[in-house]
C-alpha cells in the first residue's frame, strides 16, 4: 500500500513538480493545499500518512500548521519543507511539532521516507 501524502505549499509550480516526482517515487499524493488553513482542513478530511508543509505560507506559518495537525492528529507524520536551508530553520523545526525538515532543493522520496521514519 502506497504512503498517502498531503502537499501544503503556496507555489503551484513547485507543487506540480513535487507531485510528479513523489508519485514517481511511489507516494500517493492525495491532496494539495496552497495555504495553511486549507491544508489543515484537507488533512482533517484525508488523514494522510505524511503532510509536507512549507514553512512560509500566505496565511499562517508552517510551524502553526504542524502544531494544528499534531493537535488534531490528522496526519501521521509531519515534515516541514522550505526554500531556505536547515541552518536557518532546522533548530526551530526540531523544536516544533513536526517530525522533520527538508530543504526543498534536497526533496526526494528517500528524504521523505527518512524524515517520516
Amino acid at each position, binding site marked *: 500500500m502506497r504512503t498517502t501524502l498531503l502537499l501544503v505549499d503556496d*507555489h503551484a*509550480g*513547485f507543487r*506540480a*513538480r*513535487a507531485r*510528479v*516526482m513523489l508519485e*514517481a*517515487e511511489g507516494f500517493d499524493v492525495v491532496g494539495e493545499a496552497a495555504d495553511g488553513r486549507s491544508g489543515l482542513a484537507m488533512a482533517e478530511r484525508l488523514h494522510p500518512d505524511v503532510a509536507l508543509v512549507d514553512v*512560509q505560507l500566505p496565511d499562517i*506559518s508552517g510551524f502553526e500548521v504542524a502544531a494544528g495537525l499534531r493537535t488534531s492528529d490528522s496526519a501521521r507524520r509531519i515534515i516541514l519543507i522550505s*526554500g*531556505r*536551508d536547515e*541552518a*536557518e*530553520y532546522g*533548530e*526551530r523545526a526540531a523544536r516544533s511539532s513536526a517530525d522533520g525538515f527538508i530543504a*526543498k*532543493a*534536497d*526533496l*526526494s*522520496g528517500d528524504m521523505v521516507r527518512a524524515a517520516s521514519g
Partner: protein
Amino acid sequence: MTGPVRGRTAARHWTATARWLLLVPPIAMAYAMLALGTHPTAAENPLPYITDTLTGIVLTVAGLLLWSRRPGRRTGPLLVAAGWLWYVGDAFIVAPSSTLAPYLGFALHGFYDPILALVVLSFPDDRLPGRAERWCVGALTALTVALATVRLFATPPGFGPGYAPSDPSSPLLVIDNVDTALGLNLFLRFLIGPVMFGVAALAVRRLVTLRPSARYVAAPVLAGGAAWTTFIAFGSIDGFLSYALGIPILADGDVWNSIGYATRVLGPLGILLGVSRLRDRTSSVVEIVAGPLGAPQGSDLEGALRQAFDDSSLQLAYPSATGWAGADGQPVDLDGLPPSRAATILDSGGVPSAAIIHDEVLLDDPMLVRTLTAVVRLAVDNERLQADLRTQLEEVRASRARIVEAADAERRRVERDLHDGAQQRLVALAVSLRTIRVRLGPDANPAALTELDAAAVEVKAAIDELRELAHGLDPAILREAGLGPALQSLADRSPIPVRTDLQIDGRLPARVETTAWFVSAEALANVAKHAQATTATLTARVADGWLRLSVADNGVGGADLSGSGLRGLVDRVAATDGMLTVQPAPGGGTVLAVAIPCAS
C-alpha cells in the same frame, strides 16, 4: 551715516573727559586749605580737619562718576555742586577779605546740606518718592536760604569767614548786633535740626522698604546719609540749646566732634560706594558672558541675571503665539506691569526676540541696560543658533535613519523576489531533474545519468548560492524569530567555530535587530576572511535599555575602523544612536563591540 555717528561719539567722549576738569577747583581748594592750614581746629585735631577737607573732593568724584554713568540725570551734577559748595565757606583763604567773595562763600557754605538730602532721598531713582521727602527737602532749602541771608546781612565780627575778630565786617551788614545775629543764626540752625532728623528717618524708612535690587545700590547712600543728617540734627539742636540755655546735650566735645567727622565722611563715602555698586553690576553681567561656561540660556540665564542684579523678580520673556511667555512657558503681560517694573524689549532685524522685565531703577543706568541687553541678545542668539544646530543635527540623524530604513526595505524586497522567483524556479527544476532521474531508472544510459546528476548538482549549487545571497540581504529567521535565533543561525553558518553567549529575551525594535544582525554578520565574515582566527565568540545581552553585542576572535588583530566595511557599520550603528568600537583583544585578536539603545 557712519561719519556723523562717529563724530557724535567722539564729541561725547571729549565732553565726558573734559568734565573731570571740574575736579580741579576742589582739589586746588583742598590743597590750599591743607597747605596753608588756616582752619582754626587744624592744629588741635588734624585728622578730622584732613577728612573734612577731602570730603568735598569725594563728593565731586562721586558726582562725576554718576554723571558719566547717568548722563542727563541730575544726581551727578548735584553731587558735583555739593562738592564745590563744600569749599565756598573757605573762600577767604584765596580771596581777599576786602572783597565780597569771602562773605558770599560763608553765606552759601551750608547749601550742600539740602543738596545732599535731595541726593540721599532720591537715590537711585533720581526722584523724591513721596510728599514727606519733598517737604523735608523743601523745608531744608528754605531754612538754608534763610540762614544764608542772615549770614550775609547779619554776620557779626568774629563769626565771619576768617573766624578772626579783627576781620572787617561784611560790606552787606544790615544787623550789626552780635546777640541778634547769633540768636537768628542759632535759631535757624535749631529749626534745621528736626528737619534733618526727618531726613534721617525717611532715609532709614527708604532703606527698609526699598526694592531689593535698588536697595543693593542705595543702601550705602541711605545709611551714610542717615548717619550724616542725624549728626547735623544733633549738632544744630545742641548748638542752640548750649547758647540759649547754657545746657549742652553732649558734655564731651571731643568725642562728639570725632563722631561728627566720622559721620560726615560716611555720607560721601556711602554715595561713592553706591556709585561703584552700579559699576559692579555691569562687571557682574559681563562675567555672566565671560564665565567658564559661556553665556547661559533660558532659565539659567534668568537665574544668573537675577543674581547679578540682586533682583529676584527679574524675568525673561520670549515671543509666543499669544504674545509673550516666560522661560517657563507661562504667558507674560508686558502692558500690565506694576509701576516699579519695566520691560526692555530686544529685537532682531526689527522683530522682537526677547524682553527683559526688570526693576525700573535699571533704566537710570543706560550703560547697565545696554550691557544687560547685549548679554541677553547674545544668549538669545546663541540659544537660537544652538536650536538651529540641534534641528539640523536631528534632521541629519532622521535622514540617515530613513536612508538605512529605505535600504533595509529594498533588501527585503530583493530577498522576497529572489525567494519567490528565481529560487522557486530553481527548486522546481531540481525536483524535475529528480523526477527524470527516478523515471529513467537505474538501467538508463550511464552517460545520460552522469550528465543528469551533474546538472542536479549544478542546480543545487545555484540554489545554495542564491539562498546565501538572499539570506545576506534579509535573513528570514531574523524577521520571523528575532535576534537571538538569527545570531545563533549566523554562528552556525560561520566557517570557523563560533561560541555564543546570547541573553536576549523577546523581540527588540526591528531596526535594532537588523543593525545588530548586520554588524554580527559583517564582523564574523571579516573574522573568517582576514583574522586568521581559529575560533570566535559572539555575545549579546540586553540590559538597562541597551543591547550590547560583541564579536571577539583569536586572530592576528590589526582591524581598524578606517576600512570601508567597518566604516559602513559605524554609520549604520550611528543611525540607531548607538556606538561601535574596535579594540585589540587581551592576548591577541580583535574585539568589535556595539551598544545600541533599544528601550521601546
